[in-house]
């Protein structure tokens, strides 16, 4: 009777079924999407860090022949260690660098020249001489990392620059000082266009900003805020004015701190152009690197540093010095050994992770020696000996809660108890290790208990059956079988402690430590820092060069943690036993 009605119902069922299956598919897609999203995050996280770290593993070094003149290296003239330590090695390095650019004589030029490296490098020369006094009076080859700003420039990170081969013949009016470059053709037309385009873009951006500030002033909450916004807008408009003269095609193009720099490489020297005639055939400028001769030349290069000098940390002169030294083979890109064999430093090019690494080793040693025995002992007691009463129940609840206490609270505990009550030294690996041990303890206990529980009772019963005491059964039979599991759990707990930062900030392990602590008993109470804290410290540093070093330090830290976890996995694979 329902022959007519049946198809609609079957249809409805079929439609419903299709809908339900679509819902099923959607649901499954959400699941896959969630996992894909999480893994994407992981990939982006690790990828971005690897990308950022890339530049830190190499750096540009400056190799100089330094003559260790007797009167500078040995001021007292008795060759004693004390006298050698007081030698002015930085002066010697400066002398050697000046020999490379004999023309540099004005105070500004010398400051720019000596700014190519950090004076702290003199200490390494001093150490070399103290170790081998016979070097005094000879010429040695000194390799030092160049200043971090120069390094970033040479790596092409901070400064945009292009080299364009010049066309036509160019005649310099002299080899030194203020010179005029004259070409028969409008040789500088390309450069002028480039600079004008940049100026126009810059002016428009500044005007935009001014307009935005003005609209903000309209909606500002207080009178002060409105006035501040208006003043900023007026300043921006004034700044935009300055670009007009450059943009105007009738007037000469004056190059200044807010425009790109135009350098001309000709006859083995470099001229910094300060003004270009509108007809693009004549340029006024100053010689930055002495020309070999004043002959007209076809082979010249326009060197445009597009980042305005107001927006970069190195001067045109320094760029010229750096490039000149590079072409003479004295500045080279090498593997950055400082990153691995130096302790922290204020100068990024000299800063390394060695101090933090040693601090981490010492801290982990203390943590391991405290957390593993105490944790395993607790686990054995609770699992094998403890009577089931209120007290042991309380201990169990306690341990579960401790496992979830935020790590920073352990830092507060360490500060209040270990440092303020017991008077232990601040910033010391000893205290750091103790705090981390307390923090790791619950992890170790929980995993050790799981490992003990996994040993089947038949083992215990067999041991007890042949007359062993409880202690003997536990220590001679159960514990050896549970050992792989216990070790795996302990290593994972230690790996967690290795990456922990917050509690160590509380007990003062954020100090700037320029000397690596000694790798021994005395190092335990010396101020030091650890790898993750070093990452934190560097990430807050203002120098751009620290950014990539932070990422590199993170990679070192992550590889340490991978090592730990790999050890745990190997242990588990090797000794895991299923009952």
């Amino acid at each position, binding site marked *: 009777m329902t022959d007519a009605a049946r198809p609609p119902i079957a249809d409805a069922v079929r439609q419903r079924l299709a809908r*339900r299956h679509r*819902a*099923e598919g*959607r*649901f499954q897609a959400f*699941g*896959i*999407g*969630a*996992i894909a999203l*999480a*893994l994407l*995050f*992981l990939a*982006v*996280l690790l990828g*971005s*860090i690897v990308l*950022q770290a890339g530049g830190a593993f190499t750096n540009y070094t400056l190799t100089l022949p330094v003559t260790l003149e007797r009167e500078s290296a040995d001021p007292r003239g008795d060759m004693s260690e004390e006298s050698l330590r007081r030698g002015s090695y930085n002066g010697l390095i400066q002398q050697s660098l000046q020999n490379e650019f004999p023309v540099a004589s004005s105070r500004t030029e010398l400051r720019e020249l000596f700014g190519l490296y950090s004076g702290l490098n003199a200490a390494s020369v001093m150490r070399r001489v103290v170790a081998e006094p016979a070097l005094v009076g000879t010429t040695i080859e000194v390799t030092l990392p160049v200043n971090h700003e120069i390094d970033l420039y040479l790596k092409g990170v901070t400064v945009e620059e292009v080299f364009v081969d010049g066309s036509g013949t160019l005649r310099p009016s002299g080899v030194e000082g203020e010179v005029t470059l004259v070409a028969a053709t409008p040789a500088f037309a390309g450069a002028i266009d480039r600079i004008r385009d940049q100026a126009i873009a810059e002016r428009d951006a500044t005007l935009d900003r001014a307009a935005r500030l003005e609209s*903000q002033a309209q909606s500002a909450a207080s009178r002060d805020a409105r006035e501040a916004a208006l003043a900023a807008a007026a300043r921006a408009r004034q700044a935009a004015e300055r670009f007009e003269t450059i943009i105007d095609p009738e007037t000469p193009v004056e190059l200044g701190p807010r425009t790109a720099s135009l350098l001309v490489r000709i006859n083995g020297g470099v001229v910094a152009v300060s003004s270009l005639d509108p007809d693009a055939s004549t340029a006024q400028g100053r010689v930055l690197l002495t020309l070999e001769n004043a002959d007209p030349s076809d082979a010249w290069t326009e060197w445009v540093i597009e980042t305005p000098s107001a927006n970069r940390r190195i001067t045109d002169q320094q760029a010229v010095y750096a490039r000149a030294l590079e072409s003479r083979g004295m500045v080279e890109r090498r593997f950055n050994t400082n990153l691995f064999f130096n302790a922290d430093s204020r100068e990024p090019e000299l800063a390394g992770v060695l101090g933090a690494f040693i601090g981490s080793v010492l801290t982990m040693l203390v943590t391991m020696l405290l957390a593993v025995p*105490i944790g395993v002992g*607790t686990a054995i*007691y609770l699992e094998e*000996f*403890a009577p089931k009463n209120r007290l*042991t129940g309380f*201990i169990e609840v306690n*341990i579960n*809660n*401790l496992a*979830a*206490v*935020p790590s*920073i*609270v352990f830092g*507060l*505990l360490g500060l*209040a108890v270990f440092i303020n009550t017991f008077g232990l030294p601040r910033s010391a690996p000893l205290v750091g290790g103790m705090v981390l041990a307390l923090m790791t*303890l619950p992890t170790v206990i929980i995993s050790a208990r799981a490992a003990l529980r996994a040993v089947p009772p038949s083992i215990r019963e067999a041991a007890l059956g042949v007359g062993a*005491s*409880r*202690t003997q059964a536990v220590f001679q039979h159960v514990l050896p079988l549970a050992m792989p599991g216990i070790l795996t759990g302990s290593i994972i707990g230690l*790996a967690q402690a*290795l*990456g*922990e*930062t*917050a509690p160590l*900030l*509380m007990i003062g392990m*954020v100090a700037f430590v320029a000397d690596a602590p000694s790798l021994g008993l005395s190092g335990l109470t010396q101020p030091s820092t650890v790898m*993750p804290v070093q*990452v*934190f410290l560097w*990430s807050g540093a203002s120098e751009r060069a620290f950014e990539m070093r932070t990422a590199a330090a*993170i990679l070192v*830290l*992550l590889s340490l*943690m991978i090592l730990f*976890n790999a050890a745990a996995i190997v242990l588990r694979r090797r000794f895991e036993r299923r009952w």
Partner: protein
Amino acid sequence: MQLSLFTALALLVLTAIGFLAGRSRALALAGNGGTRLHSLPNYHGYFVALWAGLPGFALLAAYAMFASMAVNSLVLGQMERAAAPLQAQYESELRDDPAYTGAMDEIARLEIAISELRDEADAVIESDGVQSDAVAELRERQAALQFEIDDARFTRDTRAEAVAAEMLEDLRAADDLALARAGFEYGRLPSEQREVYMADARALAFGVELASRDTPELRALADTLRPIHQGLAWGGSLAALGIALAGLAFARTRLAVRFRARNRVEWIISAALALASLIAILTTLGIIFSLLFESLRFFASIDWRVADFLFGTQWSPQTAIRPGQIGQSGSFGAVPLFAGTALITLIAMMVAAPVGLFAAVYLSEYADSRVRSWAKPLLEILAGVPTVVYGFFALLTVGPLLRDFALFLGYEDAVTQSALSAGLVMGVMIIPFVSSLSDDVINAVPQSLRDGAYAMGATKSETICHVVFPAALPGIVGALLLAVSRAVGETMIVVMAAGQAANLTANPLESVTTITVQIVTLLTGDQEFDSPKTLSAFALGLVLFVLTLILNIIALRVVQSYREKYD
């Protein structure tokens, strides 16, 4: 140091000797397989070794803990006694010094004036509010008075300094009473420099480190310090060795054929294990008492206005450095911190809860074992990455990205350090936490429930949504609560990526601050330990601890009761 290291080695040797002595004694007692010992010879050895080692090491540990304190108090006592006449002379000279007494009177007068002014200001604030012109005028007057009082204090201190220097100069010229001079100098030092003074004396006495200064006074102090220190060191070492020897001898006499050496040794072992398990309780007690004690000190220092702390909306601990600035009190209102913490936690959970739950459902219900075997460990990696790395990622990658995106959308005030970037990254961090906990919970749902649903013709997703999920709900709620407690206590990400400004806002693009950020800010860098600013960190720590504790207890309860239902 050298001596105690040597003593420790000697004690170790004694312990080993004890073991061998006990063992050989037991073997001798047993004869050639004649009589049967109660315990194995090794246990006799352990017994003697424990008697030799434990008391000796205990004494050495006690020495290591208390020796420097004892030396200091002895030396300080001697120094004070020697300096007492000098101190008396100094005080009488000050009393007779007109410039000094004049300055003191001036200070007293100004202090009264300031406290009057403050009362007046309180009254004005009460009636006109803090922003009024009258308060501004009063503030200016207070600043002027403060300036005067600082001036007077400076006069007083320089005068006192001059008198002291004169006295010391005379004595130094006569090269007299060097130790008394040391005590006098020490007494005049501010407390933070006293430790340096003692450290210098110690350095001069033992010549191990370099002293930062070298004066006759320090030399005299070093000369006093050296014999006391050495006496104590030798006494401690000899006592430790003596006690070890006595223990060894005593334990050896106890050995006999029927002696229950094994039971004794096992008793000590189980006692040691029980002691180890007490450490966990001690840690909790240590946390509770240290937080509570310092928090009480903090509340005392803000006159017990606990409600202001918990419900105040103004957080600016820095301005309260100068006590009694008009209109600047009551800046410890922690509500902005709670709000910031809540905002970031909310954002984090909005990321972690759906992603983590879906991942868990997929892994436990859909994925075959091959996918599980690589996807699970990969997810766990997210949990293993140190939080400081997430912080760096949030600060340098996510923060700028979000800011540029907000600017692109036309939101002008976007900043790099925002609640959103910190929350997002934190959410990523707790994804594996949510997923692995919920995975366990979902796996614990009995298969019979699923089979029942399939038998009714439900699809897999319908089974999950209508059967598995409701059955697992309590456990999932517990897991989410644990994740929340994790997010609330997380420190490094927010320290690096959320900013410092105590804004009370619900806008995720602004920078906010959290409880943990403020604890770190307050306790890093140079601080004196007694200021309310520093102590407030402990009060915040207490709030954090209580908050996470409550969350954990509820979560564990929920998870447990859920487990019981299906076990």
